[in-house]
């Protein structure tokens, strides 16, 4: 009696497991499986970002659309406003359809000070479209690495400022670097702009 009950239980459990497994297999089959990341994608670097709305996400979730990426910090008086200007200037030179396809991601090199509130203040002050523009800070230990994959160099100064190179980097939908420019300001680098137009035109 006991034995047959156990056998029955085993059969039921095995059947259940089988059903669950096949359901899982079916779900995996039907759901579009994301293609593996290309080896030359910057998203190969795991990076957790905290944005102006205090949302925390991995930057791989940016996959799927071309991105304009740069690094900055909110207390920067001189070059960093120009980085925002550069992004805006690119935006202005795109058609509405192209613009709708592009996302802008500004990554802080000063996570100690760039809290969500500090990031949000720049969004407000510069009237950035939060649907398309994201300002975010990585964990302090990851700043050098993200700067590394983007080819940006920086040094923290004693007074809390940073000495840094300024670059705009254009990523394709899979995070591959399509173009970069170190020309920042309200007049876009024509070659870089051409690359953005191309990347945002189907």
């Amino acid at each position, binding site marked *: 009696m006991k034995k047959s009950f156990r056998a029955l239980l085993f059969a039921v459990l095995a059947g259940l497991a089988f059903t669950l497994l096949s359901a899982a297999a079916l779900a995996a089959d039907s759901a579009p499986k994301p293609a593996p*990341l290309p*080896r*030359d*994608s*910057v998203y*190969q*670097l795991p990076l957790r970002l905290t944005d102006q709305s205090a949302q925390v996400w991995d930057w791989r979730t940016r996959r799927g659309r071309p991105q304009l990426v740069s690094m900055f910090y909110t207390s*920067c008086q*001189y*070059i*960093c406003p120009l980085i925002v200007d550069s992004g805006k200037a690119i935006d202005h030179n795109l058609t509405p359809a192209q613009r709708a396809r592009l996302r802008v991601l500004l990554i802080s090199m000063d996570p100690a000070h760039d809290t969500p509130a500090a990031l949000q203040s720049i969004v407000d002050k510069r009237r950035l479209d939060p649907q398309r523009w994201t300002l975010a800070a990585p964990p302090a*230990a990851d700043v*050098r*690495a993200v*700067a*590394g*994959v983007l*080819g*940006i*160099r*920086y*040094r*923290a*100064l*004693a*007074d809390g*400022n*940073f*000495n*840094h*190179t*300024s670059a705009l980097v254009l990523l394709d939908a899979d995070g591959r670097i399509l173009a970069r420019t*170190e*020309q*920042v*300001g309200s007049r876009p680098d024509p070659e870089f702009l051409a690359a953005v137009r191309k990347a945002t035109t189907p």
Partner: protein
Amino acid sequence: MLLALPLAGLAGDAGPRYVGLPGGTFVSALQYEDAKTGVRVAPFALMRKPVTNADFLAFVRAHPQWQRDRVAGVLAEPRYLSHWASPTALGPQALPQQPVVWVSWFAANAYCESIDARLPTWSEWEYAAAADETRKDARKDPAWRERILAWYARPSNEALPRAGLQAANAWGVQDLHGLVWEWTDDYSSLLVSGDNRDQGDPDRMKFCGAGALSMQDRENYAVLMRVAMLSSLEGADATANLGFRCARSAR
């Protein structure tokens, strides 16, 4: 026999893997506009020897994403570990006790993280490397400078010696000079004027803040060469003479 093996290994070691350095105010050979009286170096621990091929092999076996056939291209260039016989075997071009070279900054950084450590900063490295065998700061001694420069003058196509063969410096650290170049955590903070090459833009467009670094101590060619080399590298780069060692912050 099983017990004897690890003990035999220890006998050849010069004590623990790290040595503690007290830190303090250090006058760099670099001229920092924001730290003219010297940089503060907090107490830290530094590996006595550079990381070896054997060490790095154990790491890539435990972390297959760092094997040369699997690593992401943005994290290591194609020549990464190209001198090894295979992704998981050293072979004749990479002896176990030689310092590991052909490693990218990302790989070096990941290695140190895997053992709860980090790469040393440039200031920490320069501070530790200012010592000779008897003096904690031998940089003013022309004879010592000559000795270091003689190493840089040697052809670099000869096989690398084993790590840990040279006498320890006054801090107990070996091979800071005379073996390999070494990654630092902040390699990309060394914005020397060579970085301003032909941009067509004035410096102020390229650098936010105090501008490029310059040399305070122009006679210190060894440091000048290190800085020039590190400042020319991207994080995915690897070279035949570039290795690393790890550091830890004092608690």
